[in-house]
C-alpha cells in the first residue's frame, strides 16, 4: 500500500488526542528473533511473568494459545480437543493465508489516527489473529500473551479478532515483561468483529514495568444480537498509559459492556476510558470503571456514550478512590445524545476512604489496615465484573497483592 504508507509518514509525528506525548524515537527496535517452541517449554521466568498476567503456559483450563516475545510469534495453536472450533494464527500469517482478512484490517481503527497507530502500521510486529468459527461455543478461554524481553524495546502488535455468527468464546490477553526489563513502549492495535448473535468476552491484563509506556488502540464492531464484554485490569504501575477503546453497537439488540480496574501508583500517568456508540435498534451499553490512585499517580478516567438510535440505552459508572494526597483522579464522563429516545446516564464519584467506614470496622475488631484493605477490596469488588470464572480468583489475588503493596 504505497499510498497508505505516505499518509502514515505524516501521522508518525502526530501526538495522540489524549494522554502525555512521547518521543517514539527514544526506543529500540532491536530484538533477536525467538525460535518457535511449544508453549509448555518456555523458560520458567517467562512462564512465571505470563502467569502474572493471566496466561498459563501449562495451558491448563485454556483452549488455545498465542505467545509472542518481542517480534516473534513463538507459539500459536488450539489444543487438540478444541481443534475445528477456532483458529489462532499470527496476523502476518493470517493476512497471507486469507485474502479476505484485508477487509478487516485497519477498518475499525484509523491507521493515521496518531503516531502510535502509524507506528503499528509502519513497524508492525505480528499480533494474533483469532477467529471463532460459526456456531462454535468454546467453554475454556483462549489466551494470548504479548511479552517483551528487551530493555527499552518498542513492540507494535496488531490483533484481529473475529467471532463468527452464533459463536461464543472468551479471550484472555496478558501483557508482561521479563523481570529484568524496566522500560519500553508497547503499541497494540486490536480490531474486534463480533458477528450476528456471537458472544465474545475479552479480558486484558497488563503487567508491565515501572518505566513502561503503553498505547493500546482498540475498536469493536457488533452485529445484530452480538454481545461483547471487554474487561481491562491494570494493577501494576506504568510510566504512562493511554487508551480509549470504542465499541460500535451497529446491529439491532447488540450489547457491549466495558469493565475497567485500574491502580496507578508511583509516578504513573494513566488516561483510560471507554466509548460506546449505540447505532442499532435496541442496542445497550454499560461502562464500569474503578480507579485507585496511590503515591503520585495521576489518573484520567474517561467515558463516552453516544446515542444514535432512538431505541438505545447506556449507562456509565466511574468510581475513583484516592489513597494519597499527592495523587489525583479526574473523572470525565461524557454523554452525547443525537436522537430523541436514546437514554444515556452516568454516575461518577471520586473520594478518599471515609473515616467513619474505618471506624465502623474497627469497632467490629478489624485493625486499621485490615479495615482499609477490606474497604479497598470492596471498592473494586471484582465479583461484580463479568470476568471469566477461570480468572476471577487470579484477578482477586492481583488486586489483593496490589492493595497490600499500596498500603
Amino acid at each position, binding site marked *: 500500500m504505497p499510498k497508505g504508507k505516505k499518509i502514515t509518514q505524516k501521522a508518525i509525528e502526530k501526538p495522540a488526542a489524549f494522554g502525555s506525548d512521547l518521543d517514539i524515537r527514544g526506543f529500540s527496535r532491536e530484538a533477536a528473533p525467538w525460535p518457535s517452541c511449544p508453549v509448555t517449554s518456555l523458560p520458567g521466568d517467562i512462564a512465571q511473568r505470563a502467569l502474572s498476567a493471566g496466561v498459563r503456559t501449562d495451558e491448563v483450563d485454556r483452549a488455545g494459545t498465542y505467545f509472542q516475545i518481542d517480534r516473534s510469534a513463538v507459539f500459536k495453536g488450539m489444543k487438540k480437543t478444541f481443534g475445528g472450533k477456532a483458529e489462532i494464527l499470527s496476523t502476518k500469517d493470517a493476512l497471507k493465508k486469507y485474502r479476505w482478512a484485508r477487509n478487516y484490517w485497519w477498518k475499525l481503527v484509523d491507521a493515521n489516527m496518531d503516531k502510535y497507530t502509524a507506528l503499528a502500521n509502519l513497524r508492525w510486529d505480528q499480533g494474533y489473529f483469532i477467529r471463532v468459527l460459526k456456531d462454535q461455543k468454546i467453554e475454556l478461554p483462549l489466551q494470548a500473551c504479548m511479552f517483551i524481553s528487551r530493555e527499552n524495546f518498542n513492540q507494535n502488535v496488531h490483533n484481529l479478532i473475529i467471532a463468527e455468527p452464533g459463536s461464543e468464546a472468551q479471550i484472555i490477553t496478558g501483557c508482561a515483561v521479563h523481570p529484568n526489563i524496566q522500560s519500553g513502549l508497547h503499541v497494540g492495535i486490536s480490531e474486534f468483529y463480533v458477528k450476528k448473535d456471537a458472544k465474545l468476552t475479552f479480558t486484558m491484563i497488563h503487567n508491565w514495568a515501572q518505566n513502561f509506556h503503553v498505547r493500546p488502540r482498540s475498536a469493536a464492531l457488533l452485529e445484530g444480537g452480538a454481545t461483547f464484554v471487554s474487561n481491562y485490569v491494570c494493577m501494576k504501575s506504568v510510566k504512562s498509559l493511554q487508551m480509549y477503546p470504542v465499541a460500535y453497537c451497529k446491529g439491532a439488540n447488540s450489547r457491549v459492556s466495558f469493565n475497567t480496574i485500574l491502580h496507578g501508583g508511583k509516578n504513573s500517568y494513566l488516561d483510560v476510558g471507554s466509548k460506546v456508540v449505540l447505532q442499532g435498534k435496541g442496542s445497550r451499553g454499560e461502562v464500569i470503571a474503578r480507579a485507585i490512585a496511590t503515591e503520585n499517580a495521576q489518573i484520567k478516567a474517561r467515558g463516552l456514550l453516544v446515542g444514535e438510535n432512538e431505541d438505545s440505552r447506556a449507562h456509565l459508572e466511574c468510581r475513583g478512590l484516592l489513597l494519597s494526597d499527592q495523587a489525583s483522579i479526574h473523572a470525565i464522563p461524557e454523554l452525547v445524545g443525537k436522537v430523541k429516545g436514546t437514554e444515556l446516564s452516568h454516575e461518577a464519584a471520586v473520594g478518599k476512604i471515609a473515616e467513619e467506614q474505618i471506624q465502623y470496622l474497627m*469497632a467490629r475488631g*478489624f485493625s486499621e489496615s*485490615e479495615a482499609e484493605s*477490606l474497604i479497598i*477490596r*470492596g471498592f473494586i469488588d471484582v465479583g461484580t465484573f463479568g470476568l471469566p470464572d477461570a480468572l476471577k480468583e487470579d484477578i482477586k489475588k492481583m488486586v489483593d497483592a496490589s492493595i497490600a503493596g499500596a498500603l
Partner: protein
Amino acid sequence: MGERLAILTIEDLTVKIAGKKVLNGLNLEVPEGETHVLLGPNGSGKTSLIMSILGFPNCRILSGRILFDGTDITNLPTDERTKLGLGVAFQSPPSIRGVKLGEVFKHIAKGEVDEIGLAKITNIPMEFLERDLNLGFSGGELKRSEIFQLLAQRPNFALFDEPDSGVDVENLEIIGKAISGFLKGRSGLLITHLGHILRYVKADVAHVMFYGMIACSGKPSKIINLIMKRGYKWCEKCPKVRRLRKKR
C-alpha cells in the same frame, strides 16, 4: 449491688468533637452484669459518650479517663478496646460498597459462631450475607444487621445506640428478644429515646444526660414514665439540671 466490680468506669470525662465540648466531666459506673439505660434530649451527648467509649479519633479527650474491666483504655485505639470485650450496635451505621455482611461476620465470628442459628434469632435471611454492608438496608434491616454482628462478636459489654428507633413492632420484638437473650450474664449500656426496647430488655439503672453530664440516675421504669409524661422541658426546670447548665 455495691459488691459488684465495675466493668465500665468513666471518671470526669471531658471530650471535644470538632471543637465543640460534648462531654463535660462526666462520671458513670456500670457494675459487672448490669444493663444501664441512657436517656436524654437530642444533643445532650449520648452518642458522643458512646463514640468516646469506643475511642473514635474525632473525640478529643481533654480530661478524665475510661476504665474497662480494670484496664485504662482512655488512649487505646478502637480495635484494641474491641479485643478487650467491648462491642457496639450503631444507630446509623455507614454503608460500605463491595464489603459483604458475610465477610464481616466471618472475621468477627472466627468460626466459633453458628451462622444459621444467629441469622435466625436476628431474622437475617441468609442471602443478606451476600449483600453490601448496610447498602440499601431498610431501617429494621439496619438494626437487625447491627445486632447480628454484635452477637457474632460476643463482647462482655455492649453499647446499643437507639436499637429501637425507626423500627416497626415486629422488628422491635425480634431485636428486643435478641438483645435480652444476649445480655444474660453480660453487661451493657443502652441508649433509647422512647424506652420501647425496655418492654423486652430488663435494665437495672437509668441515667438522664444533660449538657454532656449525668443529671440523675434511678429506677428505669420510674424515670421513663416521668419523662414520657412530662418531657425533657420539665427536667430542665429541675435544680440539678440547672446546676449542670451553669457548670458546663
